[in-house]
């Protein structure tokens, strides 16, 4: 597949696949439940306990394997919900304009200026105790603060699209508004929507980890990397030598974020033909000894030597070059 030829996408996909694997099979593969006394406190990493043990003597490796699932569910679910909200609200505001636009823009602006984390902490404190463990509810709550940015971006894109001739033309031949939106406007927004989805997912992941870390949600159920960070902080793991306890979930969260960002760049280049640059990649330029992208208004000159000119089909023999 062409999309896999892009190294960014490939690395992002592999990273994400690893995390999804951990999310799906982690709890099965984990040697112990996350909160079960299986060793002495503060054991160093060993063959029995790969990541060592906690202050209570729990197995950190098991905690790590168990921690991925809820994070992935909350992040992606909330990415889907928030992106759907931002598409509906943003495109509607941009397309219909007028009073609808005023109202929807105001709504988006309000949610943009709300300080998200304190707001979520307040919402959480009002939830009945039994519901705090629900990952779906968690995702829904995080999406409430995550949609506004995407909606604003999509609104401005829609505003510029709606005045284009092809949109006017389908209006004149009598297409209904929903059809124009779905078939004329939204396909043009796909790169923006994809980027918005991945970054909202990233945002949701960060927010969920932060909420757990500050203890605003039920810390032990569902178990997540945020819970590990919470407990390692409150049990002073840094001072007691249990550094793997917070390093493992920290690095995992960072890598998952990297995977999403890489995928976003890759999708952007895949969808936007201008960024694809038909084979004139950084790598190709480097091979030719140019080292940087060509600038507009100064076409690069890459000469082949006499030997290479005899076999112009072979690109590896470009020897001499001038900028």
């Amino acid at each position, binding site marked *: 597949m062409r999309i896999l030829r892009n190294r960014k996408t490939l690395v992002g996909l592999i990273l994400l696949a690893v995390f999804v694997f951990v999310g799906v099979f982690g709890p099965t593969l984990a040697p112990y439940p996350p909160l079960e006394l299986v060793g002495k406190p503060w054991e160093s990493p060993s063959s029995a306990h790969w990541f060592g043990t906690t202050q209570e003597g729990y197995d950190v490796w098991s905690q790590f394997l168990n921690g991925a699932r809820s994070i992935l569910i909350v992040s992606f679910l909330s990415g889907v919900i928030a992106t759907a909200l931002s598409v509906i609200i943003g495109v509607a505001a941009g397309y219909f304009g007028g009073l609808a636009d005023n109202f929807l823009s105001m709504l988006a602006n309000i949610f943009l200026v709300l300080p998200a984390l304190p707001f979520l902490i307040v919402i959480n404190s009002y939830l009945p105790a039994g519901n705090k463990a629900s990952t779906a509810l968690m995702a829904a709550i995080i999406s409430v603060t995550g949609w506004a940015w995407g909606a604003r971006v999509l609104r401005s894109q829609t505003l510029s699209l709606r005045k284009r001739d092809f949109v006017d033309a389908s209006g004149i031949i009598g297409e209904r508004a929903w059809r124009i939106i779905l078939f004329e406007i939204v396909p043009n927004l796909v790169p923006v929507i994809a980027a918005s989805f991945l970054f909202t997912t990233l945002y949701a992941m960060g927010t969920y980890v932060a909420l757990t870390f500050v203890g605003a949600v039920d810390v032990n159920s569902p178990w997540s990397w945020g819970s590990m960070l919470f407990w390692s902080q409150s049990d002073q793991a840094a001072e007691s030598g249990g550094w793997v306890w917070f390093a493992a979930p920290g690095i995992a969260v960072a890598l998952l974020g990297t995977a999403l960002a890489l995928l976003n760049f890759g999708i952007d280049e895949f969808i936007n033909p201008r960024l694809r640059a038909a*084979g004139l990649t950084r790598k190709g330029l480097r091979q030719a000894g140019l080292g940087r992208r060509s600038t507009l208004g100064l076409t690069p*000159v890459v000469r082949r030597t006499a030997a290479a000119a005899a076999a112009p089909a072979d690109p590896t023999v470009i020897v001499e070059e001038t900028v």
Partner: protein
Amino acid sequence: MNAPVLEISDLSVDYGFGPDAVHAVADATLTLRSGEVLGLAGESGSGKSTLAYAVTRLLREPGVITGGSAVFHGDDGPRDLFEMDGEEIRALRWSQISVVFQSAMNSLNPVFTVGNQLTDVLRAHRRGMSRSERRARAAELLDMVGITEDRLRSFPHELSGGMRQRVMIAMALALEPRVLVMDEPTTALDVVTQREILQELGGLRERLGFAVLFITHDLSLLVELADSIAVMYAGRIVEHAPAEALFRTPRHPYTEGLLNSFPALHGERVVMTGIPGSPPDLRGLPAGCSFNPRCAHAVDACKETAPRLLPISWEPAEPRRAACLLQTDGFQAPASLTRTGLRAEEIGSTR
């Protein structure tokens, strides 16, 4: 014969690198002499615009110049444009080489008046000029292209497409360049406006003495306008000859096909033949001569040997070259490609 002002030799241009690279222009050699109009004709995708853009180093990504040279005889002696760095070529552009693009009229900034945009270049390049001198020069430039002075205060949207294109031509001439590259400058305009602009261009060239590299797919236009014509096919120049000679006595089957593709205004009704087939895909050119699958005169050797652009074997003294095996030693070119100056009677004198 005038001194050369732009010598392009063995120019090759690729799009992209590596095995996916498309060879858009291959081994093109052309000489533009001062005061001359050199026409570059060919179908869409034949590489004519790519050639012009590459010579001026304006080709966008993923275009890469892979060989050859373009020696420009400017104010400070002959220099290879391909050896210059960004600053040197910037100094050369507009003041010595200027370009008019096909949709150049869209390059006008809608929020400034025409006069403002015309004087802008003078302010940057002619430091000594006073405000009133710049204004007078801008008026003069507009007058040259047949637009009245009071249009200096107009905004681009207040002008018609033809007028805007003329403003762009005036702008290109503002610094009296030696070479004017025009890439289908009149394609978007109707034939009447087109004729007006071309007539003005002809007059201007006689007065100012610049050389023009004129790119178009309209061969009949070139026959009138150009001093010499180069015909491109699949990235190669297949025939290069003085305009009159190319029109009356083509030496390459492709040129012959193009000339047979437009009808005469007078004379008997004839069935137009055109050229069978369609232009080849540059990613998979046929072996040998790339025109051989469509050529009426192709022989077996055409499928194996790629012809080079050479003088005609049986009239080597003529200032013309063709890339056709049949015109080299050891082959017999068909009668239609060996005529000497009889074509006018055959298709009716139309011009």
